[in-house]
């Protein structure tokens, strides 16, 4: 059976309707968040899948964080560790590179996505590797590594179950940690039935076993392993990878050559700092105390060791990070450890899922870093599509003040005149009105007259005009009271 599976050609078309829409939208140069989000928010199946799963992880997080003696203090500490590393990144990158060299590994600095891809393809070519097992990594998604290596003729398989499902359905991950959060069991069962040419079966255990068998053969045959990295430990020159399936561990032990692709912002100074990070990462992410596997590695196999690669390459990815690092205002956003807690907590993400954000980094953190990485003009909707409820900041294990940064981006939008002239006029007129009690009185009297007329004595307005029509598209609007508090106070006996 395993033999038959290996010869299976990859599926030609995406199977998920959301993905079809997403890919179509993504192909267009202009990112139209409005229409994508309207579509996503109206998709009951998507909403149910995402809401249920995020809520479960959110509840799990809250429960596990309570176990810590001082969760808030620990978040402050973790944020401080990351911030210190970022503030002194040049020093720690040097230290890291020295230590990796000392361990016998090689370090490559990749300025952008293109150079990272070329470096990794070059490593594969030079060492004669053909069969790649790749574990989950957001950095690799960011540079579309898998696709590139496949086009270069390498036989690459995503070994994380979720990412494997993404790969064979030609989909994109829609969550930092749970890439297939937008899929339900039935769609995965249909996909497996089609891909493996087996009868339809939606038993999760059976489906997992099917994938496991397929992946086992890939693990045995692989000569190149590719991982990401959750943390880089500067003082030891090591990479830390956390996971639940053991597939990343396979990448470290079986193949001849090992490549770890990690963003430069993942550095922490000391091994002792890792203890703080690990206490928070899995709790924040999946509501686990720890992930099933935590691997800390660096360098090729040493004499006397039973397994490990002959070659180890650490590819450090910049790809726009040093520009954010240079900004005093936004540097803090690089603290992110990609735990996904802000996605799970976010009322917007829960309703529209990850694909609507138009980038590999969705949710609140995506709404923040996507415009920073890829330009505010194209992604100006993202910082605005937030109710600023603050649930993300409350959930963030490294205390990135996401709502504040979203407001800063909105300020940049106004300062760079990226919003419409009408919007700017309305806000300035409105502010002008609020600056004088007399104008405020006239303004509220006019508004009261207009809204009460529209309510026709019912107390409710079912339809508002032009710029504010969005309100009544989904809900009614209460009519103002007959007298304002100002009037009531003035007339009191």
């Amino acid at each position, binding site marked *: 059976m395993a033999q038959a599976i290996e010869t299976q050609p990859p599926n030609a078309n995406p199977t998920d309707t959301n993905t079809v829409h997403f890919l179509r939208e993504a192909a267009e140069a202009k990112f139209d968040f409005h229409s994508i989000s309207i579509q996503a*928010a109206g998709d009951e199946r998507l909403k149910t899948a995402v809401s249920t799963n995020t809520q479960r992880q959110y509840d799990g997080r809250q429960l596990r964080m309570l176990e810590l003696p001082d969760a808030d203090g620990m978040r402050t500490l973790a944020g401080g560790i990351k911030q210190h590393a970022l503030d002194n990144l040049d020093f720690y990158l040097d230290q890291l590179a020295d230590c990796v060299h000392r361990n016998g590994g090689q370090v490559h600095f990749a300025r952008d996505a293109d150079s990272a891809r070329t470096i990794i393809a070059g490593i594969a070519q030079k060492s004669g590797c053909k069969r790649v097992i790749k574990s989950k990594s957001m950095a690799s998604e960011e540079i579309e590594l898998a696709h590139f290596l496949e086009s270069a003729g390498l036989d690459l398989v995503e070994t994380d179950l979720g990412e494997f499902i993404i790969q064979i359905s030609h989909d994109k991950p829609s969550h930092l940690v749970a890439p297939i959060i937008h899929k339900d069991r039935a769609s995965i069962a249909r996909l497996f039935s089609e891909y493996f040419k087996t009868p339809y079966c939606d038993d999760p255990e059976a489906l997992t076993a099917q994938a496991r068998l397929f992946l086992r053969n890939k693990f045995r045959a692989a000569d190149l392993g590719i991982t990401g990295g959750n943390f880089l430990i500067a003082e030891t020159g090591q990479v830390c990878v956390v996971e639940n399936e053991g597939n990343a561990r396979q990448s470290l032990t079986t193949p001849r050559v090992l490549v770890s692709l990690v963003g430069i912002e993942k550095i922490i100074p000391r091994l002792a700092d890792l203890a703080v990070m690990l206490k928070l990462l899995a709790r924040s992410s999946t509501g686990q105390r720890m992930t099933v596997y935590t691997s800390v590695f660096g360098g090729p196999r040493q004499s006397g060791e039973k397994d490990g690669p002959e070659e180890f390459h650490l590819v450090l990815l910049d790809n726009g990070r040093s520009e954010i690092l240079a900004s005093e205002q936004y540097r803090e956003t690089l603290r992110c450890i990609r735990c996904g807690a802000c996605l799970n907590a976010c009322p917007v993400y829960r309703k529209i899922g990850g694909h609507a954000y138009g980038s590999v980094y969705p949710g609140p953190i995506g709404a923040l870093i996507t415009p920073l990485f890829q330009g505010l003009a194209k992604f100006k909707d993202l910082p605005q599509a937030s109710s600023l409820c603050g649930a993300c900041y*409350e959930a963030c294990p490294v205390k990135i003040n996401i709502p504040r940064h979203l407001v800063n981006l909105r*300020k940049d939008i106004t300062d760079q005149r990226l919003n419409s002239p009408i919007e700017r006029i309305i806000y300035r007129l409105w502010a002008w009105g609020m600056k004088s009690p007399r104008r405020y009185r006239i303004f*509220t009297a006019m508004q009261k007259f207009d809204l009460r007329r529209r309510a026709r004595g019912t107390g409710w307005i079912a339809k508002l005009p032009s710029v504010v029509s969005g309100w009544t598209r989904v809900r009614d609007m*209460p009519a103002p009271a007959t007298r304002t508090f100002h009037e009531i106070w003035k007339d009191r006996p």
Partner: protein
Amino acid sequence: MATVALFVTCLTDQFYPHVGVAVAKILQRFGCDVQFPKEQTCCGQPFFNNGFHPEARRLATRMIEIFRPYPYVVTPSGSCCAMVREQFHELLHEDPQWQKPMEEMRAKTYEFVEFLDKVLKVDFTQFSLPNPRDISYHYTCHLRGIGVKDEGVRLLRQIGNVQFKPLEKTDQCCGFGGTFAVKYPAISGAIVDDKAKCIQATGANTLICNDAGCTMNISGMCHRRGMQTSVRHLAELMAEAMGIDLTAW
């Protein structure tokens, strides 16, 4: 006797003035001298949140001036309170002229429930609604920003004849977010629809919500869905339990 300046907020002023009356009368009942500086308009929150910071700064300094003579400022809105406590700092901390008055303003501004709990340290066990009533509670987001947690629920549950019905996802945003509700109605609508369903599931016909914007949003969705839910400020319910008449001053 504490002198308290009421910061009524623009939405409460226009849409829920009786909440302002309830707040003023309850504070009076607990022995406060309640003042209402009539020059007050808006704290600048819409302008701050939408990136119009010079405009927000001018409204912030205006507010600080107006409330300068008073030792306490109390507001029935969590988000306007958060504007003063959190964002005024962001806007004015680098301005030598305004830094000190801004810090004073931040230190003396309280959300209504927070003021009852932390400053007046009141107890509501002596008060009771005339009849038993099922009541649920929505945790408005900006209470997070000012560090208020379960104070509202605790005071609510002290009132006699309150049959508290916990709201599922009580701390999930209602989807208001100011202009967000108008700009992204599909997303905002999906979020407040979820809220309305959770409210319906409690079986309670009264929902406590201590922010005028959220109340407009939630009640607007409940009304659109044909639900009988009455969305009220905790001050209204307290006034009822204390026998305070809100129809006349």
